[in-house]
């Protein structure tokens, strides 16, 4: 195993080790914290496909995160109140089943990513950053002012949704579920990066003309990457809402999109485990620094600035050095 592999393994194992240690010490909140880090990592892993591999600086990924969250919130609130979601020619009931919610979250965010991608990918550079931001703001303001599902107050779900065979209210079991999903997605992303699609997507980021010249369409590659990326972030949104048992428009806010980018860059852009390291580090900073000072965001700002200016590979990049070899 090379050096980066070693670092990846320790980053990957840090979360379950932490969670198990917390279980042994009876510190359920630390498990919750690890779950939070794992979910944010999942969202950032999704973004990393578009941002790291595809070079698409999306400042609108909160759209998918929020859609995933609202998929959970809307389905579960209808199940909670026994009011059907749609009662016309046929009846659609709400549900408290996680697999169904995940499916809806993934499909709806993929659909949104398809539409936003079709429109946004016509632009590039700063314009792409800004048009994705614009879509994020549209969803944000819409969710605040639309009264049906709580508006700015959001939706509260009293009991966490269920997964067959597990007690999801037990922190360690919910953590295990989240971590299993994160592992699955990481495995998938690792495969994608090395698959034909990943090679072509990465080439399209480095030189679009090259990709066209070998007969591939960068637009389609990017669109598919954007859709997969949005779907994964949407799944993370559903989990995040379930962790908090609550969903609100802040999940759509541009600061949320910004934070995802921060996770990716903090950990190491384009590296499989970069977003995991970044999210873990961010949650850790948030947890420790906010106890140190009321003005702890100053320190977060300073650390972020230093990483961007002086540690361009992020956490994993600084530890592992430059990426080499093709296989």
């Amino acid at each position: 195993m090379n050096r980066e592999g070693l670092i990846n393994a320790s980053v990957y194992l840090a979360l379950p080790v932490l969670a198990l240690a917390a279980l042994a010490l009876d510190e359920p909140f630390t498990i919750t914290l690890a779950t939070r880090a794992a979910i944010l990592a999942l969202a950032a892993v999704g973004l990393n496909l578009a941002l790291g591999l595809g070079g698409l600086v999306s400042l609108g990924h909160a759209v998918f995160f929020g859609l995933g969250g609202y998929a959970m919130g809307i389905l579960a609130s209808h199940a909670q109140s026994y009011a059907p979601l749609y009662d016309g020619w046929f009846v659609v009931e709400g549900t408290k089943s996680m697999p169904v919610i995940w499916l809806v979250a993934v499909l709806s965010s993929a659909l949104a990513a398809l539409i936003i991608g079709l429109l946004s990918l016509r632009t590039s550079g700063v314009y792409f950053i800004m048009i994705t931001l614009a879509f994020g703001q549209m969803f944000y303001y819409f969710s605040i002012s639309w009264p049906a599902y709580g508006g700015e107050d959001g939706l509260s779900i009293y009991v966490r949704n269920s997964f067959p065979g597990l007690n999801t209210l037990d922190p360690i079991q919910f953590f295990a579920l989240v971590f299993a999903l994160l592992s699955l997605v990481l495995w998938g992303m690792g495969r994608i990066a090395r698959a034909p699609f990943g090679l072509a997507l990465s080439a399209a980021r480095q030189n679009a003309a090259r990709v066209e010249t070998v007969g591939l369409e960068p637009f389609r590659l990017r669109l598919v990457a954007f859709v997969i990326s949005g779907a994964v972030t949407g799944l993370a949104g559903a989990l995040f809402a379930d962790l908090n048992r609550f969903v609100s428009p802040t999940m759509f806010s541009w600061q949320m999109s910004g934070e995802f980018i921060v996770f990716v860059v903090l950990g190491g852009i384009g590296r499989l485990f970069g977003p995991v390291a970044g999210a873990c580090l961010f949650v850790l900073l948030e947890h420790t620094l906010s106890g140190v000072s009321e003005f702890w965001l100053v320190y977060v700002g300073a650390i972020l600035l230093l990483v961007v200016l002086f540690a361009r590979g992020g956490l994993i990049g600084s530890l592992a050095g430059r990426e080499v070899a093709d296989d």
Partner: protein
Amino acid sequence: MRIRNMMALAVCMAAAATAGLADGHGGKIKVGMITTLSGGGAGLGIDVRDGFLLATKGSDVIETVIEDDQRKPDIAVGLADKLIQSEKVDVLTGIIWSNLAMAVVPSATAQGKFYLSPNAGPSALAGRGCSPNYFNVSWQNDAFSEAAGAYLSNEGVGKVFLMAPNYPAGQDMMAGFKRFFKGEVTDEVYTQLGQTDYAAEIAQIRASDADQVYFFLPGGMGISFMKQYAGSGVDKPVAGPAFSFDQGILGAIGEAALGVKNTAHWSKDLDVPGNADFVAAFQAEYGRLPSLYAAQGYDTGLLLLSAAAKAEVSDADAFRAALKEAEFQSVRGDFAFADNHHPIQTIYMREVVKEGDVVTNKMIGVAATDHTDVYGADCKM
């Protein structure tokens, strides 16, 4: 940089060992306060915290852990989990905003914790979503607007122009006003949350037939609106709930706010026992005038002390009953809990005046006596 990163990673691995070691606290009450101390709206949270700490200062039964929610619901939920699971608190309090309260309160009370609201009273928690463990020490969201509607009707105001941001609290406020206002609502305008320019709305006000403006624009929105309204030359009288005219905000609006009527359950010149002492003590301790939020934080502290004097928090039923009795000298005067654990209290009308160099509020009358909210009927507990 590398060393720093490695250290960070090491800390990440070891965080389990260091997270909160305190546990088991005898006859004491451990209070977890989640409030907004950084970012936008931090002034409100700081006032609630300071008022609460002033009330509980010197008490050897109450131990308070304070956390900053940054006004973000997901952070607030995480902090609630932390306080309940890790700090093992008995009572939660501190949340300023309705949307954060909606995120935290239902699950906290479901886990058997007490929650005392020092601000924010979303209608859901007063009605169908009420809980035996949830006590609102401030107000139900609609209360000030309902009282204002009643007061303006009594004053003979016929036509009114309503304005609020387009979000649930704004819609609730306007609904509350209309519930008690007997005249005609000529216009009802919903602005964007966080809007900073009100030229368009002021033009609408100017063109409207209404002879009174009633608005709810909390925080910076109210400051912007009042300053712009004062410069517009429109002279229709303005009223609103106290949120846009508390001490912290008046300092920023200045004389542009003079003459505005606003409803509140408290004012620093309210002549009830203990209030003058509170104002003086707060000024001595923190060097500024207390706001409405400070008064609510203070009352929350007093309520908790009164219950602690009667019952152990470990005996939840006894402690709940002690809270419900609310035997403390509120700086608002008479204070009691209705069956849905929301306040029965008198709401006053205040007017913004200049006292020396300071722009501040003065009591001008009672808007509603022993006012309570309308949602209690839906509360089954």
